[in-house]
């Protein structure tokens, strides 16, 4: 009897949480599949119609462009961060020198930093070097603000690589760069995957720099473009929902294919195996 009450209680909690976390998502997808008139007739019915029209009209309105921009700038920034971050992490984690601790702390303290504290100077700088309202303008801040967490993850991981390997390579006459490139980098793959996933998801969804540095629709990234859609779709709710569904798709797909990696990546070093 006691056991039955306990089980029932657990199921009730589990289901309430499922509804709380999952319902908004179902509502979004199901509304995206309704026509305007369906929506007005039965706004709350889940999956009452199956109409793909909204998805096509969203693409016609320029969502493709936003997708392309977002992917381009995110991929570029993430790969530069991985390379530059790994380079910097090498001496920071494996070599003794005077300023080591100071430089390391300067880098990782960036994790605590509110972006707003840099917003106006970055806006002015971007204007002054003539990059305002270009996609390239986003690269600098995206790379800079991804470095702290990336260097944090990479140095933690690099510390655990045995020194003996390095020494052997040194005997064979490898330079430091040679050691980094041939010995350290190949062993770094799991940490680099974490860095890749963490930064990809964060930069793909980044909003405030795009808001401040981009103004014309052709250069907008996905989050900024969606925000712009809001006005155009203020009367067409299913259309807006279709846009939101499509915008959420890339990351969901990545998640479904590599759940464990994404979960670990998003834990960003806070989750250790």
């Amino acid at each position, binding site marked *: 009897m006691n056991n039955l009450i306990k089980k029932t209680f657990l199921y009730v909690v589990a289901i309430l*949480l499922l509804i709380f976390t999952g319902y908004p998502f179902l509502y979004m997808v199901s509304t995206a599949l309704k026509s305007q008139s369906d929506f007005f007739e039965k706004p709350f019915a889940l999956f009452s119609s199956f109409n793909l029209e909204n998805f096509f009209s969203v693409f016609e309105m320029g969502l493709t462009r936003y997708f392309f921009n977002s992917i381009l700038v995110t991929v570029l920034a993430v790969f530069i961060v991985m390379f530059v971050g790994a380079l*910097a992490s090498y001496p920071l984690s494996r070599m003794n020198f005077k300023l080591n601790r100071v430089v390391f702390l300067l880098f990782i303290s960036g994790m605590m930093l509110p972006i707003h504290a840099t917003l106006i100077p970055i806006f002015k700088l971007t204007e002054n070097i003539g990059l305002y309202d270009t996609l390239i303008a986003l690269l600098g801040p995206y790379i800079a603000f991804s470095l702290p967490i990336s260097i944090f993850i990479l140095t933690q991981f690099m510390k655990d690589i045995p020194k003996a390997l390095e020494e052997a390579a040194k005997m064979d006459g490898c330079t430091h760069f040679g050691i980094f490139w041939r010995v350290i980098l190949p062993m770094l793959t799991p940490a680099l995957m974490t860095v890749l996933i963490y930064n990809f998801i964060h930069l793909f969804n980044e909003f405030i720099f795009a808001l401040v540095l981009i103004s014309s629709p052709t250069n907008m990234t996905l989050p900024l473009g969606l925000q712009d859609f809001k006005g155009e779709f203020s009367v067409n709710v299913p259309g807006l929902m279709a846009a939101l569904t499509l915008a959420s798709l890339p990351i969901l797909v990545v*998640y479904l294919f590599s759940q464990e990696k994404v*979960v670990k990546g998003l*834990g960003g070093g806070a989750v250790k195996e």
Partner: protein
Amino acid sequence: METHIKVARSRSQSRSVSKSHNNWKKNLTILAFIAPAFIVYAVYVLYPIYSTFNYSLYEWDGMSEMTFVGLQNYVQLFNDAVFWTALTNNTWVVLTSVFVQIPLGLIMALMLFAPIRGIRLMNSVYFFPFLMSTVAIGLLWVLMYDPINGVVNQFINVFGFENVAWLSEGNTAIFAVLLVIVWQFAPFYMILFKAAIVGVPEELYEAAEIDGANTITKFVHITLPMLMPTIVSSSILAIVGSLKAFDIFYIMTGGGPNHNTEIMGTYMFKQAFVNFNMGYASAIAFLMFFIALIVTIIIQTMDYYRKKKGALS
């Protein structure tokens, strides 16, 4: 003999020359490795913080001449009722994150270890909100809070309540946004707790069971103490993250109605890029930096003493 010493001396000389040469080479190597990251970081993070402080001492519209006003912007800020509202709202976000979001994340993580069916489904669905972009989340919930067509009103109608204009009434707007923040970030703490629960040794529970402990005692005396480090680090992440909040407020309410949901981030943005009070906005921005810095120092100090105490006992 004579020559022997000479050779030895010249050897040691050349060794010291090559040592300083090596040192120099080593430093150059270190520089080459760190420079690319450090230059980008200095240009886009370190220097801008200094610039922000510098701008905060001026009155400036972003284009024409800057006028030096000293600490005038800060004086004005402390007398600005909207700024105090913003600070209060930021505090609300911190409190909600620590006292609602983290416990909910813990409950969600515990459910993943409950002796029931459907764990795999829960594992995926509970995590969904964290994967959506904040902009998409904001727009979705604006619709769900819609005064006429919104699901939330439909839901409370079932219990006999009247429709509420959640986001445009002063006393509900902030809580409406806070609920969305909880919805978005609880899954993040769920993963942190899930990883920590896996790490709790099974023997502890077995031993407790032999002593006749029930579920609640086991939770209070084993799970909770073992999760304490995760609770502390989650709280740090939550506090720091809350001070940085911007996107969801900007999208859902823009700080309205009548500054009721204004937070430091939205207020700074408006002053800078809507009103073009760059000097005043810089003062807000620098204060945000300063608060984050103080909070970080307090947390680090507490953590240092906690660890020291732990090492002694």
